[in-house]
């Protein structure tokens, strides 16, 4: 962790009626990194982001931005609940959002035109927002959040409602922002997309932190099993495979491969020699546990712990 994080959050709490939306959350974000809050709907991600931006006041806890200047003008925000003025010209709206973030009218207009050019929407600059397709409206919303080249951008579910092509474009733009020095905090429940972008990840569930770290760290911590995809010359019987020492589970795929999960106490060499003794191996691939699986494991573990302690 950096000595001079751009944001430090300590013991943040927020309760709505009887629901604890955020429950003692602490984390810090380093300058220039992409930090992701990851969790299912209702995990407390949006509430956390809103508290960071002073849209909602926390019940307790501290939020400290280390930015030189006014946080409101140095931060950009893409809210989960999207909306812009549907019946006003796009360029005018973007210029207004730039002005609200401390830009002069001329600078805001220039930046809006630049971004519209990059989004291939220059010819629509004076059209009303409602005349654009949903995907293009999303682009405009995104531009409105980062038009002032923020030092810190908070993007709440930036990929929701986007098709795969636009998702990739957004990923490129976010990477570009990072290269230009913007620190990015994004929240999402689309784990595969977060996996492509994030330097560090905070896994959240029911307002609490499950784990915080880099993706390899998360894998290291959560990986209790290895996974191999094996194609045998002659497919051994599943019961024989599962009876093999170290194997925890096997799945036969439709294309003739066998997914073999084995415990971490067994080394890869040991497992390979045991499998080879059953039948000749034609091909073998190892598979990493993805974020989705890790998240499910951690959530399940947290839930079990909670139930056990009760």
């Amino acid at each position, binding site marked *: 962790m950096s000595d001079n994080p751009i944001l430090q959050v300590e013991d943040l709490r927020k309760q709505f009626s009887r629901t604890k939306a955020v429950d003692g959350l602490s984390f810090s974000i380093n300058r220039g990194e992409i930090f992701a809050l990851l969790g299912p709907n209702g995990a407390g991600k949006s509430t956390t982001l809103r508290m960071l931006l002073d849209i909602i006041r926390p019940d307790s806890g501290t939020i400290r931005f280390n930015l030189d200047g006014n946080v409101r003008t140095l931060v950009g925000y893409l809210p989960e*609940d999207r909306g812009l003025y549907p019946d006003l010209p796009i360029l005018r709206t973007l210029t207004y959002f730039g002005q*609200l973030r401390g830009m002069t009218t001329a600078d805001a207009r220039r930046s809006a035109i630049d971004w519209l050019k990059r989004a291939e929407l220059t010819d629509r600059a004076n059209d009303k927002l409602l005349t654009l397709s949903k995907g293009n409206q999303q682009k405009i919303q995104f531009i409105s959040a980062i038009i002032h080249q923020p030092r810190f951008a*908070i993007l709440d579910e930036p990929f929701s409602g986007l098709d795969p092509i636009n998702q990739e474009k957004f990923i490129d733009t976010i990477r570009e922002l990072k290269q230009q020095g913007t620190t990015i905090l994004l929240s999402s429940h689309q784990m595969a997309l977060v996996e492509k972008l994030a330097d560090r990840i905070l896994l959240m569930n029911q307002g609490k932190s499950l784990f915080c770290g880099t993706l390899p760290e998360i894998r290291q911590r959560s990986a209790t099993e290895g996974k191999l995809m094996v194609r045998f010359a002659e497919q051994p019987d599943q019961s024989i495979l599962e009876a093999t020492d170290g194997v925890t589970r096997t799945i036969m795929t439709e294309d003739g491969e066998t997914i073999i999960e084995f415990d971490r106490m067994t080394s890869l060499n040991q497992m390979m020699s045991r499998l080879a003794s059953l039948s000749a191996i034609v091909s073998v691939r190892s598979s990493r546990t993805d974020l989705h699986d890790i998240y499910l494991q951690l959530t399940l573990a947290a839930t079990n712990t909670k139930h056990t302690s009760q």
Partner: protein
Amino acid sequence: MNNPKEDLKLTWIVARWEFTRFYKIRNELIGMAVMIVVGVISYLVTTTAMKQPDELPRIAVIKPAGLVWNPGTDMLRKASLMTDTLTACKQLSQEQLEGVLVILSGDRWKIITPAPRKWISEIESDLKKQHNAWVINATGITTELYEQVTTQGTLERVYLRETPDRAGKITAMVFIIFILMGIFLSFAYQFTAISGEKQQRITEQIISAVKPGIWMDGKILGISLTGITSITVYGILTVLGFSLFMQLTGKGFAAVFGMIHLPSAFLFLLFALLSIVMWNAFLAAISSMITDPNNSSKNGLLMLPLLPAMTGFLALGDPDTGFMQFLSLFPLTSGSVMPARMVLGNVQTWEVITSLLILLAAIWLMRKAATLIFRTTVLITGKEPSFAEVWRWARS
């Protein structure tokens, strides 16, 4: 960190945005042109409908034999004299006649028509004149003496305090109307600006950039300016139109300015402007609680702006009662009641100053309340919160 200069700049950016978003001079002029066209058409239609037909109505007169009948109008002179009421009424029902006048005695008459007719008053006047002539003739008194007997006395009213001049009264009435116009013109915009933005989910992104107080102040200011600009344009065009009318009717252009008391007008303008801003702050607070303008239980509150107009006109009738004195200090009504009292009543300087100070304090408090309510309800887009809930949340 607070930076008043930066806050002021942002407030002005929001105010200018709201103003340019809603105020469209082109639309205003088109609206006015449509109003003038509708006015001219209505005038033409009304005058045509009210115009007496060249042809006299067909009337039958039934009178007792021997009664002197000496009508003064063509309508009655050319009426057919009949003796049988039933026959006349039958002809009336068959639309052969338009009216049947039954003379019951020298001073009692009855007119039967299918429905009210404008010419009945002309007949009535003729009959009264005939009756007067008959009385003078029968009693042998002179016309002058008869007029003295029948004329009612007059009461001359003398007031110790200077009576209000017509110019001052007209000025006060104009400003009461302007306050009402300013409030109602801007309140529709206030709704769209706050509830509409919440519905369209624009608010969250904006208040991540500016403080809720700045956003609210900008809205109140920008939309008040919309109403104020509208009434300024209407005011200028009304004066121009009236001047043109005066010029055409030979009274001269300057006659219009004779109707306006300029020193009062400046003070009334101050009350009108502050009153419009105060009401906008009030409407902003109400709008912040509304999640769906089409189905809100708080829509009834939006009729409250009628209050200053009603009380203003009441004050024009009876300005110096204790209740009116209170209303001239009460910020929701002072904008209209104080000008009315200043013209017609007995108002001390300290009352005017106190009223202005209370109005300013009310604006400050109302905008604070609007900000607090907005901040509390900003993310609520579903079920509308009750007043009690908003109060509880705001306190917590």
